[in-house]
């Protein structure tokens, strides 16, 4: 079984891109990114070299929890077969000093607020631009409301 097939098996479809997320032994998803040892800088998604000092970056886990910094719900015709409507956010991660862009849980699209605590999930959402289903990471409320 190739790596791609493993992910396909775990997530129900191949991920929209490699190296964005994975699951730990308990099945909990986490984000993957890069870390620079020279200047202690984190990035998501992973990039080969640090944007600040150009040193090579290490692959690191970025956890799967954060707090919504801002968000919106997109109600026009979505790209990549995303749900209509779909919500997205900038999220401040708990485990790394990073504000990242990510999808929110579309089953509660429009129901998020700045400051909400959220956790990562992975599901088959939308396609790859050519109609083939893809697994994407998205954040949902950590606490029930």
């Amino acid at each position, binding site marked *: 079984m190739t790596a791609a097939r493993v992910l396909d098996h775990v997530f129900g479809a191949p991920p*929209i*891109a490699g190296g*964005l997320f994975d699951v730990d032994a308990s099945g909990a998803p986490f984000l993957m990114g890069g870390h620079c040892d020279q200047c202690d*800088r*984190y*990035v998501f*998604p992973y990039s080969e070299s640090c*944007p600040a000092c150009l040193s090579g970056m290490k692959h690191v886990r970025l956890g799967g929890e954060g707090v919504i*910094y*801002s*968000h*919106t*719900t*997109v*109600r*026009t*015709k*979505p*790209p*990549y077969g*995303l749900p209509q409507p*779909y919500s*997205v*956010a*900038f999220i*401040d991660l708990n485990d790394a*000093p*990073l*504000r990242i*862009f*990510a*999808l929110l849980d579309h089953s509660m699209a*429009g129901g998020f607020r*700045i400051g909400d605590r959220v956790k990562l999930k992975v599901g088959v959402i939308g396609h790859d*631009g050519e109609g083939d289903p893809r697994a*994407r990471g998205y954040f949902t409320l950590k606490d029930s409301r």
Partner: protein
Amino acid sequence: MAAAYIIGASTTAFGPQPEKSIVSLGRDAALAALSDAGVDSASVNMGFFANVFGPLLFGDTTIGQDVFGAIGVQRAPIINIENACTSGSSAFHLAVQAIEADAADIVVVVGAEKMCVPTLGLVGGGQSDYASRNGMAAPVGFAMRAARHMHEFGTTLQQFAAVTVKSRAFAAKNPLAQFRKPTNVEEVLAGPMIADPLTRAQCCPIADGASAIVVASEKAARANGARAVRVNASVLTSGESVSAPDIVRWGTDIRTCALAYEKAGVGPDDVDVAECHDAFSISEILHYEALGFCAAGEGGRFVESGASAPGGRKPVNPSGGLLSRGHPVAATGVAQISEIVLHLRGEAGARQTPDAKVGVAQCMGGDKDGDTKSCTVVVLSR
């Protein structure tokens, strides 16, 4: 360093123009700008052509040589520029640089775009981009800036809507604008939601259109007499990548405006009229703050006060801006500068800013890492 002047400017109508090609739009604007400047094609030493969607929508490349060929400019150097929404103002920046390098006496800048075709989808980054593939598109980043601006500064839906109301009030006075019917806050807010909290009337319409400017050396500008407009500063910057971008205190926007003021030796209080990149209602509010027309966070209350409206003390986007005039991407940056030229010359008709001496055109474009890819600020004076 040689000083640069604007001696001719012209903009076509913006809006769907199915019978026009990119080349014919560009030609119309360029011929009118040359005629406005009173110079002929043979005097043109260099040309810059800005366009974004030609390759994507029609498979056309190296279009500038066709546009300049159509206006009788032969043999002179011509270069095609793409820089997202600042394509036109980046081309202008290079035209000014050519004058400053003493490489030319007369340089023509043309920005032209044809977007009103069924094949144009939601405008976003390319397929190689993480954010684009996860739902980032033109309105999305700005909708999140709007939500955060409300959260941090108490900006209201009514204040966002006031940007569009003001925009339509100006556009009613500009025969070349696309949406010229006056509106009100209730109507703006009642429209369909595009990306919360931005309703449709708070998002700029696409358009077909072109704009052209003739830039000249001091020597060549002399023949133009009192109509020549001085370029006090043209600043182009790029965004940066930081771990946690502050999306409502926009570093790149603030920094670029400050740099342009410094270069021109003026401050926000000296500005009589401004055009800014109001792709969305929230954009204009953020640009008020970056341009120093009000304090950080005060943009919503600034527009609500009427200060930037017709008759206000600091008119912004008298052309109707992107929201009402429309946004043919590569034409926009040139059209903004052209609009300021009209006001400085006293030729802006019903929307003329009284006694305008100093004007500013601000533009930005392209999403990258929660920042813009490119930002331009031009300061002009008479």
